[in-house]
């Protein structure tokens, strides 16, 4: 028990003093996850919208696959990305393994299906409501996609936040492709795993507190967005 309160006190002082190691790890985590979510949004938003709008053979199968990919175990993603990036793998020559770039790729692979699947749902519901009106107004398919993404913006930001939550909390994928190298690829989750196994609870606990705060902030933002949507649009977008 004493161990725990000591560790907790040290953890707090690490945070309050902006401990350099801790700050470095937090900043790398944010950089990796935010970049991964950005990549996932750039791919997942139009992909989800296209799945919602276009009828093509194999569409239902594609939707099932994207939905299933939402629940991909991070370690499996890590393994696959590892195999792709390893020296003998197809992307080996890029030399990305055990770098932040590799971690960004792994998290983007993990988050893109989440963004795409949630986007498809949002856009499909919106399209059911808008289709005849947009066709009547003369919207081209490309224009319609843009309109649906814009009009679904509140729900879509929530989808992207969900993706960010998943990326920043995941440990298996970044551990495998990043290697948890001090000062290079060490992020919050992998550091916690390592420090706990070494018995150094203070840093682990400090990072844990920050992760929880981050999760609260993300969910707070999502609820604020829902509230705004209700107020300005009469209903959830």
């Amino acid at each position: 028990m004493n161990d725990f309160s000591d560790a907790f006190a040290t953890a707090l002082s690490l945070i309050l003093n902006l401990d350099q190691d801790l700050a470095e790890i937090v900043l790398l985590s944010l950089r990796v996850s935010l970049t991964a979510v950005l990549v996932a949004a750039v791919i997942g938003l139009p992909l989800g919208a296209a799945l919602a709008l276009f009828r093509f053979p194999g569409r239902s199968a594609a939707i099932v696959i994207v939905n299933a990919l939402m629940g991909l175990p991070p370690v499996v993603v890590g393994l696959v990305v590892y195999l792709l990036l390893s020296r003998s793998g197809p992307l080996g020559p890029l030399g990305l393994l055990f770098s932040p770039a590799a971690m960004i790729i792994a998290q983007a692979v993990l988050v893109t299906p989440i963004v795409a699947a949630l986007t498809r749902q949002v856009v499909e519901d919106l399209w059911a409501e808008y289709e005849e009106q947009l066709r009547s107004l003369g919207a081209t398919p490309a224009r319609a996609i843009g309109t649906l993404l814009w009009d679904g913006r509140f729900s879509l930001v929530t989808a992207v936040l969900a993706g960010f939550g998943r990326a920043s909390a995941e440990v298996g994928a970044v551990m495998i492709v990043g290697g948890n190298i001090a000062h290079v690829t060490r992020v919050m989750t992998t550091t916690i795993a390592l420090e706990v196994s070494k018995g150094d609870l203070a840093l682990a606990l400090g990072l844990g507190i920050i992760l929880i705060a981050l999760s609260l902030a993300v969910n707070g933002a999502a609820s604020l967005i829902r509230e705004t949507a209700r107020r300005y649009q009469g209903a959830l977008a």
Partner: protein
Amino acid sequence: MATFPPITPLSVEGLAFAVDGKQLLSEISFTLEAHRTALVLGPNGAGKSLLLRLCHGLLQPTAGRVSWQGAGADQASAHQAMVFQRPVMLRRSAAANIDYALSLRGVPARQRSSLTAEALERAGLSALAKRPARVLSGGEQQRLALARAWSVRPQVLFLDEPTASLDPAATRAVEELIGRIRADGTTIVMTTHDLGQARRLADEIIFLHRGRLVEKTAAADFFSNPQSQEARAFVAGELLW
């Protein structure tokens, strides 16, 4: 927009529409000349909304065809607009809803704001320009839908019960607006359950019953001397679905 060659007359030949083997409209044929106002009448479920959506090109007929006969026919869809029975408002301000319609028709940005303001003014919505369209009342949304459809200056305007949820004063205002749109030379195809309104606005009546065209006659004749038994019952307020 006004100088484009006419897309009318509208010709409907042997039009039919079925869903899952259920025949909802059959053997509908008529022609509508330019600058006319046709009122599509009939009891609930007669197929009025379906007919408007087929004519506007939103639905593909299962038999027969809808064709535009004028010199501008190849661009027919760009010169029509429709107000739906249930207005669909985009999740943005009232003004932005109109601006959006104008931008889809390729109206340059610098002309859009004055056209938007004019359309809002005509529909009595200037004070609500900045309000999110979806928090407007049902009647306000219906007027906004009409303003949006009119803003693009269509040659042919389809109106599906445009005054269904309006109070008497707003109904009168919207009828006046429709009258002015008509006076500008717009061809109007409209449905209503308000027979007084049909008398006031119609040049001709297209009367549907159970998915069939029962009569298409000049409005005056329809009300004074309906040809079919169904139409007589309908005018007398006795026709049930």
